[in-house]
């Protein structure tokens, strides 16, 4: 049951005015962008082969990144929430590096890493990342995973460890207790973590541009398209792709709210 509404008082009214002004500003921005184009121009832009490819590549890479981010975020989030170890604060701060560093710098760091002996060894042992689709995923993952880790840590922080303890007294190992008791209870948090990583990856531009390039029909994702279309003065196409990204972001927001971030 939701709490009863606050009684209108100058205090609450002034807070509502501040929130309302900000909301109006956001809505005005979106309405202005939507009004800048017509449905015909929108569909014409979305019909372009290059743009269709970038939509497809964005959807695929964001989904792969979201899944990879979750694979990393679940164990790391659990470790941070449950374990106590020396240097934990340092580890926590280090895991936030992708969140606080400028995205372009992250891209540059990735590019430089793969010019070193270590980076070249990884590429020779697996696949080429620099200026390829794999590089797009890696650039998205580097940043998206940090947000997913934060979300999962928050999720596990809010789940009591006591049921796990009980499960262990009933015959489980720690891993079984986590698998059978904690993870099912954390499923909403896992969905939220994957969604955050997905949405964050959809908007990622700087690191992809630096590390994977902006080659049409190869490493072009939606933010790259906006930039490429703007750079040649094709504002309609840039607006069309921007609106598509707004729709995707709103869909993710709605899904996360619907499933519920709270666990």
């Amino acid at each position: 049951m939701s709490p009863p509404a606050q009684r209108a008082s100058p205090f609450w009214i002034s807070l509502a005015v501040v929130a309302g002004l900000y909301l109006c500003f956001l809505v005005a921005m979106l309405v202005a962008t939507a009004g800048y184009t017509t449905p015909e121009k929108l569909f014409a832009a979305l019909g372009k082969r290059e743009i269709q490819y970038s939509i497809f590549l964005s959807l695929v890479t964001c989904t792969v990144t979201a899944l990879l981010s979750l694979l990393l975020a679940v164990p790391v989030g659990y470790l941070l929430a449950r374990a106590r170890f020396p240097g934990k604060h340092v580890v926590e701060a280090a895991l936030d590096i992708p969140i606080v560093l400028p995205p372009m710098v992250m891209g540059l760091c990735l590019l430089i890493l793969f010019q070193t002996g270590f980076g070249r060894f990884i590429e020779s042992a697996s696949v080429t990342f620099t200026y390829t689709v794999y590089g797009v995923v890696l650039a998205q993952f580097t940043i998206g995973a940090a947000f997913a880790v934060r979300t999962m840590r928050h999720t596990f922080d809010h789940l009591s460890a006591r049921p796990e303890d009980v499960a262990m007294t009933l015959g489980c190992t720690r891993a079984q207790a986590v698998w059978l008791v904690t993870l099912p209870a954390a499923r909403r948090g896992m969905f939220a973590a994957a969604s955050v990583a997905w949405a964050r990856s959809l908007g990622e531009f700087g690191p992809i541009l630096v590390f994977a390039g902006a080659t049409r029909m190869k490493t072009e994702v939606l933010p790259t398209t906006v930039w490429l279309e703007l750079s040649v003065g094709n504002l309609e196409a840039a607006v069309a792709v921007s609106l598509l990204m707004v729709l995707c972001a709103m869909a993710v927001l709605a899904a996360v709210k619907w499933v519920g971030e709270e666990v």
Partner: protein
Amino acid sequence: MIRFDQISWHAGAFRLDAVSFTVPAGSYGVLMGRTGCGKTTLLEILCGLRRPAGGRVFIGERDVTGLPPGERGIGYVPQDGAMFPTMTVREQIGFALAIRKRPGAEITARVKELAEHLGVAHLLDRLPQNLSGGERQRVALGRALAAKPSVLLLDEPLSALDEELRDDLAALLKRLQRELNLTALHITHSRREAEQLADVRLRMEAGRIETAPAG
């Protein structure tokens, strides 16, 4: 029998030194003491959830100090029941047997038996969020007893309940402990509970245990 032999444990400024006491086999031990004095820590050491810095823990004649929690033959009921959030009452009570890969028919029969005994047979398909405080504690008790432990450990199991329900559950606990010949260790702040339940009263004071027979 439960026996603590010279158990010590420390975390920061908090320490327990050379704690020793015994709850005889088939007895109901009630442990009291101020909040934060280390009662729950002792229970967790007995469960195997915390490793003592020194000393030994015995259940029966068996030294269980190095054993994992699931091999100690204990049933544990924490304060809030600590229900498994996504499992039905049926799955919670059958959990210990399912983990041991017992046949489905055996699990079903044991769940039915315990649920009837504890008065939760009509709740088997409910999730924990749809249970009252008293129902949760009954389910937690059934879950703890499913694998037929020799020792039952209860950490303030009645503290969140209203008085009438408390008396009912206290009577149920005593009856079960007698019928199943369990050795019980029950933490509480309530003198009334101690009077209702205790065969052996234990009081924790300044990191030491004083034992007094009930009466």
